[in-house]
Structure formats: C-alpha cells, structure tokens
C-alpha cells in the first residue's frame, strides 16, 4: 500500500509532466534565453516541490506554478548579475528568436519573409516592454489566459491587467508601424 508521501510524490510528478512545457515556454518568451529559461524552470519546480505540502489547491496548480515562475524571473532580473545580463542581452544579436521558428505552412517565400519580419518586430517590442507589461502580454497572447486568470496569477485586479495590456498592445502596434 502506498504511503501519503508516495502519493504526493506521484501527484507532483504528474504536475511537472503536465505543466513543465508551459512554464518553460513562458520563461523562454520572457527571457529569450533557452539556458536561462531551463534553469529558472528547474528552480520553479524545485521551489514548488519544497512547498507542495503547503499547496491547498485554492488556485489551480498552473496558476500557482506560474506565480512562482514570475517571482523567480523578477528576482533574477533584479539581481546584480542579471543587470549585467540584461545589458548584454539588450545589445546582443539574437540568434534564437521566435521569428526563426515560424512554422512554414502553405505560404509563399515573400509571405514567409513578411511574417518573419512582423514576428521579429513583435519580439523586439516585447523586449522593450516593462517587466509587468511583458508578463501580462505573454500570459495573454502566448499562454492565452483570460483576464481573470492573469489577475489571479499576477495578484492584481482585472482593471490593472486591462490597463497594462492596453499599453503593451499600443507599444507593439507602434513597433509594427500601426501608430497613426
């Protein structure tokens, strides 16, 4: 017969399998660095594992994990080492980018090029957003969360989420040349 600890371990293992790709994707989109995203994802699940007993299921496991990931990412950017990192990242030429991984689909070469250019501009605009705006933008347009979920995950009210998203979209539009 399985003990309570074994059951909890099995449960947590299921949570990792289910949510790891999403957490990693969010962190990758946010940091634009695969190694850093991988490290932060591991830290996130390590932290979650340590506190798994305290998780009372008031929110979904995904919301809880995403909150941990957001906090980790915040701490990371704030740390001194990351200040240097951010500087390097800002000036570095990105070789791995969302635009390099666009699914080809049934499109002409010109269409592909245009799509790649547009996605590159979105990436650039997202990188220039404030930390909070970027988080909300990614939760909305990459993780496809609704406003209520974003509010729960980030710990702010829906109005604030709306305001941040609106500002973020305005900046993305401006980068895409839609500002008139």
């Amino acid at each position, binding site marked *: 017969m399985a003990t309570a600890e074994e059951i909890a371990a099995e449960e947590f293992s299921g949570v990792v399998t289910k949510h790891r*790709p999403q957490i*990693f*994707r969010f962190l*990758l*989109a946010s940091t634009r660095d*695969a*190694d850093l*995203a*991988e490290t932060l994802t591991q830290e996130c699940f390590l932290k979650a594992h340590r506190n798994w007993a305290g998780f009372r299921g008031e929110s979904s496991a995904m919301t809880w994990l995403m909150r941990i990931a957001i906090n980790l990412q915040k701490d990371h950017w704030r740390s001194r080492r990351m200040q240097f990192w951010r500087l390097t990242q800002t000036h570095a030429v990105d070789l*791995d*980018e*969302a*635009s*390099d*991984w*666009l*699914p080809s689909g049934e499109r002409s070469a010109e269409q592909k090029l*245009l*799509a790649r250019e*547009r*996605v590159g501009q*979105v*990436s650039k605009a997202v990188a220039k957003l404030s930390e909070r705006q970027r988080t909300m933008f990614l939760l909305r*347009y*990459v993780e*496809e969360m609704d406003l209520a979920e974003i509010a729960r995950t980030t710990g702010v009210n829906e109005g604030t989420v709306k305001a941040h998203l609106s500002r973020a*979209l305005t900046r*993305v*539009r401006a980068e*895409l*040349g*839609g500002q*008139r």
Partner: protein
Amino acid sequence: MSFESGTSEELDRELAETLQEYRAGINAWAEAAMVRPRAVEVRPAHRPIWRLAAGWGLSCVLVVGGLSAGAYTHVHRQQMAKIAAARVVEQQKVVAEARAQQEEEDLLAQVDSDVSREVPSAMEPLAQLMSGDSIR
C-alpha cells in the same frame, strides 16, 4: 508595411494574425529548446605537464627579472648619490680656496697701502720743505 495602410478593422485583424504567428514561433522555439541537448563544458582535471612547466618557468623568469631590476636600480641610485656628494664637496673646496686667496690678496694690498703712505720720521722736515716749494 501593410500595418501602415488599411482600415482599423484590417489593422486589428493583421495584428491578431501577427500575434498568432508570434505565439506559434514561441511554441516551436520552446519545443525545440526543450529537446535539445544542453551543452556542458568539461574541463580536464589536470593540466598538461608542459603547460605546468612553462608556467613555473615564466614565473621564475619574472621573479628573477623583477629582483635584478630592483637591485640594479638600487645600486645605480647609490652610485649617482656618491658622485653628486663628491661634486658638492669639490665645489665647496674650490669656493673656499678662492675665498682664502681673495682674503690674502686684500690683506697684502692693505699692508702695501699703509706702508706706502707712512714717511719715516727722519725724513719729515724734508717732506715739509718739498711740500712748501711746490706751493710756491
């Protein structure tokens, strides 16, 4: 670019499409990044012997060179100081000799002038007579 023209509706449609493409790109990137092997830098446990020897050799050369340069500078400075001190002593000697010679010459000149002005007492009346004649 197409975003610069067209109606607001078109613009929103195109923005929505672009955001979908952005999402698809992030998805594909994340999937690829998750399955890629992570590079781990493995350093050799021991450095090759020749590198170790070269390191020691270079260190020794640097230490010996540094010490030699220091000693040479010290000796050179001492020599220069000695030469300078000798020059000063010599200069002082020359000045003192010149001063002594000058004093001696002054004294002799004074003695000469004192001696030449005095007339022996036996010749005094003659000297007065000569001075009287010259008045006349």
